[in-house]
């Protein structure tokens, strides 16, 4: 089953002559992990935004979990996003005044689907996810997110993206602020949890050394040129 389907997606930022994205076809299978690379400014973040429905995409160009994202109205798109997608940013993933645990539970706050899918006790699920990602200390996960190290913050962000088992996890250069060792650990943990929950993972990074952990690898400029 395909969790993400892109078909003749063309996207142009307002005021720019050339489209940033012109993808003929791109799919993500359920449980698949894909590494996406491409030079800076090639449109990687824009592609993730298109999948997440944060930018206006034409109708029937983007399907996530079988739903045409471009056909959804504004508010519906926001609700759809949290229902079906988990997102990890490069840095600053967390609301600094909430604890790690509360940050992890944010999607459950906004989405009934995610809440229902995170078991009878979302809090216990969050704690389990966090401990699987290496944050076992209850004192640690109850302290404000601003008091965590960058690596710890990224792992909390991963836990937040994974809670409630969304179909797709999008990660936009989540390791760029981490050192070599932490990078590998983080990617392996993320992959393991995605496999466990059956989510597809689209992982954007410059860092070729991480490529080997993934099922397959996609080069965005090539994709844009229609070579995939």
């Amino acid at each position, binding site marked *: 089953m395909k969790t993400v389907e892109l078909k003749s997606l063309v996207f142009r930022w307002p005021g720019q002559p050339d489209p940033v994205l012109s993808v003929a076809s791109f799919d993500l299978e359920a449980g698949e992990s894909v590494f996406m690379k491409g030079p800076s400014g090639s449109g990687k*973040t824009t592609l*993730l*935004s298109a999948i*997440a429905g*944060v*930018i206006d995409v034409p109708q029937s160009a983007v399907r996530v979990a079988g739903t045409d994202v471009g056909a959804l109205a*504004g*508010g519906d798109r*926001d*609700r759809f*996003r*949290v*229902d079906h997608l988990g*997102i990890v*940013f*490069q*840095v*600053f*993933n*967390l*609301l*600094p*005044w*909430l604890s790690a645990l509360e940050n992890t539970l*944010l*999607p459950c*706050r*906004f*989405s009934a689907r995610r809440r229902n899918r995170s078991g009878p006790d979302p809090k216990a699920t969050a704690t389990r996810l966090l401990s699987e990602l290496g944050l076992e200390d209850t004192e640690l996960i109850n302290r404000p997110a601003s008091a965590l190290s960058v690596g710890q913050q990224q792992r909390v962000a991963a836990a*937040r993206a994974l809670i409630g088992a969304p179909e797709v996890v999008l990660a*936009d250069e989540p390791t760029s602020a981490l050192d070599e060792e932490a990078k590998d650990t983080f990617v392996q943990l993320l992959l393991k949890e995605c496999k466990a929950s059956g989510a597809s993972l689209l992982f954007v990074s410059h860092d070729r050394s991480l490529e080997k952990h993934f099922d397959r690898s996609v080069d965005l400029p090539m994709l844009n040129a229609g070579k995939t």
Partner: protein
Amino acid sequence: MFNLCYKSLLNRRFIAALTVLSIALSVALIVGVERLRTEARAGFANSASGIDLIIAARGNDVQILMATVFGVGTTGAGISWDSYEMIEDLPQIIWTVPIMMGDNHRGYPVIGTSEQYFDHFRHSGGRQLIFAEGVPFKSPDGAVIGAKVAQAFGYTSGTEIVNAHGSGEVAFDVHDEAPFTVTGVLGHTGTAVDRMVFVSLEGFDALHEEPASEVADPFVLIEAPEVAGEHEDHDHVELDEPDEHEEGHQEHDDRHAHGSGHEDEGQTVTTSDGHDHDGHDHEPGTINAIFAGLEEKTAVLSVQRQLADHRDEALTAVLPNVALLQLWSITSTAETALRLMAGAVAVAGMIGMVVMLSASLDNRRREFAILRSVGATPAGVFSLILLEAVLLLSAGIVLGVIALSALTRVIDPILAANFGLRIGVGLPSFREVLLIAIVFCSGLLASIIPALRVYRMTLSDGLLVRL
């Protein structure tokens, strides 16, 4: 959402606290000014609350009020004792207190009156005068002094004082021959009474037995014509020669009839004999004013008209409350200025809040991006900002009202003692609630500006976390 908003604000607690403080300040100020204003007005209106009518020779209402209640200036002319007795005999009137003035003691006005003055005068919302020490004057040489007078010169019961004629700072003429003994000191009222010296009618007249008194008060000559519009000579004679001797009285009335040439000619002569009236052992020639109380308050307008139509003498009956409001309206410019200032502070408080909300927006862009990534709609983020404004405003208003009531608790006694003003610690009035509602709504309206900015920002930023 509320929880998120609360925690987000808590994260910025320092600047949020400052904003709440500035809102609290503007609320306290705007409500405080309003309360002070209404209470000052009410207290002012109450400063003659026991008196239903003030009767004096025809003249300006406000001037009569100023002279009799506040001891500032003089009434135009005097009124005859006959008129006093006529008024006293009116069926609607249950009490009268004669007022004589124009003298001062070391710059403080001396009032000639009867003992009933102390029973009927009311101040600061209906309080009766109380004696801090001593008793009302019983004899012609007794005097009762206001609290400020006692304080200024260290007088107590038993002190002998000497009056000077004329109502200026400078004593024109010291009446060594007519010393008074202080029999009582009035308690603090915060009104003009504190600055007054009260003596009996007889005692007041005794000041003028000296021949020198004729030239003593030159102000009346200058003031009277324009004020009362009456004959110069007439005023002069009446004010400066309140003779108590029967023959002097007669002579005075003759002159009166001559000088003024009023239609009351002859009548004054026939009524000029001494009356034997109950309760008055002394009958002065003229007095300056009469405080009167009515049996039925509703009859006040008809009595006023009746006195205005009185043919023997041109009289004005002043409704003190009406005149007080008239006087108050003169001060309305200052009042407006005060309210404008309070309003300006409130506007500054609102602007401060908008600035605080707006300034933090750029720092909070990633907060909004994160919220959107977990499903918050732009409308949700918009309402988050509004919710923040509601929280800040509510906290500011609550704090402001609490601060104000705490402050009034502290300064109420001080104001009451010094100005006879009571702000009152009670619950906010309807007007105050309305003012608070206006502050709240305008604050909320103003916060739409940053909320709209956030709305647009979240739409254009998408998931991009800008650094």
